[in-house]
């Protein structure tokens, strides 16, 4: 899938998104799209506006201006709840877990399973959590401990499980491997390929060039709140990406990498 298939409806279209904080334009007229089964890497400095853009899509922040279309239809995303209803799930860099609660409570937080009397169905939540956590990490056993007592990798697994357990169509991953060891990083990479094969679209926010070139179909680079370049991954080299991140533009006399090879 070198270039997005034309004619197909994108899962998500962000059109001319702006976000102002007082006089500061954190996101400035950014447009982007994401197709089913596609991984788009979102790159840029800290403070380039990529997290802000992702927070707008996940409903954690309202844009000052601009339009979001999901599966071709205008979407109004005013809260994380709205985003989830549209099948948009987010794995936050901070993991966003309630430390005093256990893994099942965190997994189902805001979407608790209930019995017909409206009571919490802790037994079923524990069973479901056990299933989904075991598919991600077979060694995950201490499900009833508060998550504050778990390792960084286990916490990450809970955050990932929470995003994929429900009917996810669009996944936003904000530095999913930052807290992980090598084997867990490989697990996340496998997971991304698996989700991709299921036709799920993924925005992958990452600083790790290796991950980006390994996993992404396309990249978009943000610099000072602007989208300074959207390219299929075959078109660019690591140096090109670094130039986009640092300078906000491609190197002078740039030729697409794939055509360069062809010559």
């Amino acid at each position: 899938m070198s270039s997005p298939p034309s004619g197909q409806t994108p899962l998500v279209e962000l059109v001319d998104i702006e976000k102002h904080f007082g006089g500061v334009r954190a996101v400035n007229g950014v447009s982007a799209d994401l197709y089913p089964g596609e991984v788009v890497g979102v790159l840029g400095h800290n403070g380039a506006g990529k997290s802000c853009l992702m927070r707008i899509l996940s409903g954690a922040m309202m844009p000052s201006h601009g339009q979001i279309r999901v599966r071709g239809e205008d979407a109004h995303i005013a809260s994380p709840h709205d985003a989830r209803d549209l099948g948009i799930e987010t794995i936050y860099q901070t993991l966003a877990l309630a430390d005093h609660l256990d893994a099942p409570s965190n997994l189902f937080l805001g979407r608790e399973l209930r019995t017909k009397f409206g009571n919490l169905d802790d037994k079923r939540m524990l069973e479901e959590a056990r299933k989904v956590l075991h598919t991600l990490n077979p060694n995950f056993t201490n499900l009833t401990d508060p998550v504050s007592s778990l390792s960084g990798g286990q916490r990450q697994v809970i955050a990932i499980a929470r995003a994929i357990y429900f009917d996810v169509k669009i996944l936003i991953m904000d530095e999913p491997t930052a807290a992980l060891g090598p084997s867990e990083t490989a697990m996340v990479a496998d997971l991304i390929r698996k989700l991709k094969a299921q036709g799920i679209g993924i925005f992958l926010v990452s600083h790790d060039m290796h991950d980006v070139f390994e996993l992404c179909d396309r990249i978009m680079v943000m610099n000072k709140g602007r989208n300074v370049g959207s390219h299929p991954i075959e078109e660019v080299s690591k140096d090109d990406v670094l130039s986009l991140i640092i300078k906000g533009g491609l190197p002078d006399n740039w030729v697409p990498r794939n055509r360069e090879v062809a010559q």
Partner: protein
Amino acid sequence: MDLSLTSIRSKGKQLNMSAEMFHKLSAFLTLMILIIVFAFGNAAFLSVNNGLTVLLQTSVIGLLGIGMTLVIITGGIDLSVGSVLALSGTVTGMLVKSGMPVVPAMLIGVLVGAACGLFNGFVITKMKITPFVATLGMMLIARGVALQLTGAAPISRLGEAFGVLGNGALFRVVEQGANGFPRVVFPGIPYPAILLVIVALAGGYLLRRRRLGRHIYATGSNEEAARLAGVEVDRTKITAYALSGALAGLAGIVLMSRLVTAQPNEGVMYELDAIAAAVVGGASLMGGVGNISGTMLGAFIIGVLRNGLNMAGVSAFIQQIIIGFVVILAVYIDQLRNRK
């Protein structure tokens, strides 16, 4: 495979229990030691009548403590409960005085408390004022309104029906003595104690089995995470404060009914006893931690301490000093446990 899973699960549960049970156990032991010490100090301490007195005295602090626990778990605090108690009690008293039947007047009193709590919740979530300041404001407002309404004078002669809730008891056995005077064989279970048990069970059910309870813990544990997970954080907090206010109103009615007088000056510094009960019971002012059974233990520790010291003839001033130290000690022991 199945067997090993269940064994792991039960092991995990045991570990979980023992961590939480430790605090409960130490609080329970403290309570027992207090009772033994006071029993040696004064024979009358262990009498049925004194037991009922403790139960009555504790029921007011207990009701306030349950509401306080909900608020503290969300990471907040409610300094207004003592004043709201007075306002609800005086409003009820005034309504009864003006001829309203007791039951609807009491319901209105509880609603007044809930309204005060609702106001607290709105100020905290919508005006983004810290809980300490917002409820400090309400503490002054509610007390001021109660004093203004009554001209700071107590409302007495409210009729027998008004005193039933505070002074009545279930299963009271009274027999006619030979001298013609009634003799109390068994004083019965006081209504306030029954009310406390019902509210405590309801509070425990809310926190453990209902979604709102889960959200109260999540909000106090990590507010941003709860919000991102789709929890209506503001609504959760407002509900917690409203419940705290309603329970303060209920406590006020119980207290005024017991006195058969509406006192606008009642309940000064009760909020501190309620906070102490919650904290001694293991609630963390940082949020996310606490439960009703712990708070009940805390309320009884403070109730027994007060009562025992009274019976031992210790002055009210020394009592304050002792309870102050107990609160600090309880939190210190809890921190030692958590550091491990």
